């Protein structure tokens, strides 16, 4: 059973009686352990797709199964728990809590997890270590560089050991060097820890760092193919 299974998924926004189709008849599936990119220019529907995938929004028609279940199988509280346990989000704008240390930021999802508080530090330290920020644990988020902030965000997304990591333009606010470091981390998470990662981006070079690219245009899938010769973010990466 695929981790993510989408059949004829559509989403139409209705604003003052004007219907705007954002996603039309999209179908694909993702197996556990995949590292893939959803690529496309702005307005192509990739963000809408991410919102649907993350149960942050409801689709208009079609079917979406995550881990075998659809959004209608869950109550709002169960969806919150699902996002907490099984999904990790990394956003373009980092979204760290201000005036809060790295450790506290990473612990945030644990607050809502029901996991015993005595284990929080260990879990958070583990996640921080996997993004290579162990030396920054007690720094405040405002003292970090952009790249470091995004690594904290990745650690935060990983702390509950989710089934999938959704990364929405994670390098959008970073310079190319920091961006490369982030992609490098994602690659390593996929290869070493077998993490399933969905990367949303509009940059071809970034997309080519994954193993599969879904190209979106006007709310539809234009292309869905495996990457031949995956780029190594750590090595040859040119702008």
């Amino acid at each position, binding site marked *: 059973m695929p981790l993510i299974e989408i059949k004829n998924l559509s989403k139409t926004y209705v604003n003052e009686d004007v219907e705007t189709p954002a996603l039309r008849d999209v179908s694909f599936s993702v197996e556990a352990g995949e590292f893939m990119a959803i690529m496309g220019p702005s307005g192509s529907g990739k963000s809408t797709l991410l919102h649907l995938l993350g149960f*942050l929004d409801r689709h208009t028609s079609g079917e979406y199964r995550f881990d075998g279940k659809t959004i209608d199988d869950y109550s*709002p509280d169960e969806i919150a728990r699902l*996002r907490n346990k099984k999904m990790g989000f990394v956003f373009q704008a980092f979204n760290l809590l201000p005036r809060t240390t790295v450790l506290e930021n990473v612990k945030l999802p644990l607050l809502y997890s029901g996991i015993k508080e005595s284990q929080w530090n260990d879990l958070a330290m583990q996640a921080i270590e996997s993004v290579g920020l162990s030396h920054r644990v007690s720094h405040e988020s405002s003292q970090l560089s952009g790249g470091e902030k995004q690594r904290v965000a990745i650690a935060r997304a990983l702390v509950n050991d989710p089934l999938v990591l959704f990364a929405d333009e994670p390098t959008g606010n970073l310079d190319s060097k920091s961006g490369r470091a982030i992609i490098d981390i994602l690659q390593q998470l996929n290869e070493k820890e077998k993490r399933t990662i969905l990367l949303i981006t509009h940059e071809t070079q970034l997309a080519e760092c994954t193993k599969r690219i879904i190209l979106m245009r006007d709310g539809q899938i234009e292309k869905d193919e495996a990457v031949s010769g995956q780029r190594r973010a750590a090595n040859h990466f040119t702008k």
Partner: protein
Amino acid sequence: MTFKNSFKTAYKGVTANKSRASLTILGIVIGVTAIILVVALGEGAHQLILGQIQGLGSKTVFVAPGRQPTGPSDFAQIFSDALKERDLALLEKKANMPYAEKVMPIVFGGETVAYGGDTYRATVFGSSESIADVFDVSAKEGVFFTDDDVRSRADVAVIGAKVKDELFGSVSDVVGEKIKIKDRSFRVVGVLEKKGQSSVFDFDSAVLVPYTAAQQYIFGIKYFHRFVIEATSEDLIPQIVEDIKITLRDSHRISGEMKDDFFIETQVDMVERLGVITNVLTLFLGAVAAISLVVGGIGIMNIMLVSVTERTREIGLRKAVGATDKDILLQFILEAVLLTAIGGIIGIALGAVLSFATSIILSQVLAMAWEFAFPLSAALLGVGVSAGIGLIFGLYPARQASRKSPIEALRYE
């Protein structure tokens, strides 16, 4: 999320912006301070007056003409001439009043007292020699008038310390001088010891004369304003009250309680009546102060709404990492309650300090027997009410926060 962690989160939220938080709770601080101050001062005043009434002695019973007042504003004195000389004679009979130690009539009124060119508006009391014992006053200079003076309707007077100062100024020996009340000369036979405002009556500005002379020469009446009766012991008060009723009803040919043209007031009655008055006053002033609490609550709501808008991203993030609507609701309600509760506690401390300072000023500077009483009930009420206000005024902003969609919240710039 556990409640403990919700609380921690709320605490961080509140302390993240300290200057704003302190300005926000100012309204609550002022409201609670005002309530504590009003209640503490009300309680102090209550105790003060209570002390004065108790100073009369618990063995004392007052008989007044008319009927029992139905409330603080009921001054109806329909039968103001009900207490006559005959009644006094009956009450003085041991057979009628076996447990009465002293029976004393009083007539009183505000009158202008003159000496030479100086005048002073004093309270003139006409009574018998017993007044000195019953109200615990004594002549510092000269002597008190005697029962012989009462019988002979002698125009002699004992004057209060303040009356002496006002009329005679620096003259020290005033015994034997003549003062004029209602164009009648009274010879000063004594000056009272200075007592201060420590009793129900202010004897410092009083002139005491034999009641016979007061009735005849000053007030021109043939009845009494009060009888004051002292029981041989406190336990006999109910018996005394019954005896007075029987005697006076018999004298006035009255058949039942409803038709009484007099009423009897014991110390217990006075304390009760006073309690009603001061409680109503305290309640009223407290209610005025409570309005500022409500205003403070609206301030809290305003700031919480601003805070929710400002922290839209944070709310979105929390939801994206697994916070439920309830988690967010609880977090923001707790922030509001925490703000108001802190405000309440500061308000109580400030109110306590201010009312303590006031009590010191009143007792030291004004020489009143004022005692500081910390109103514990008002303090608990203050914290409870302010936390409740946080709950009420925090609910709406917290609902707004909990209803935010995580996408909208994260998109918010």
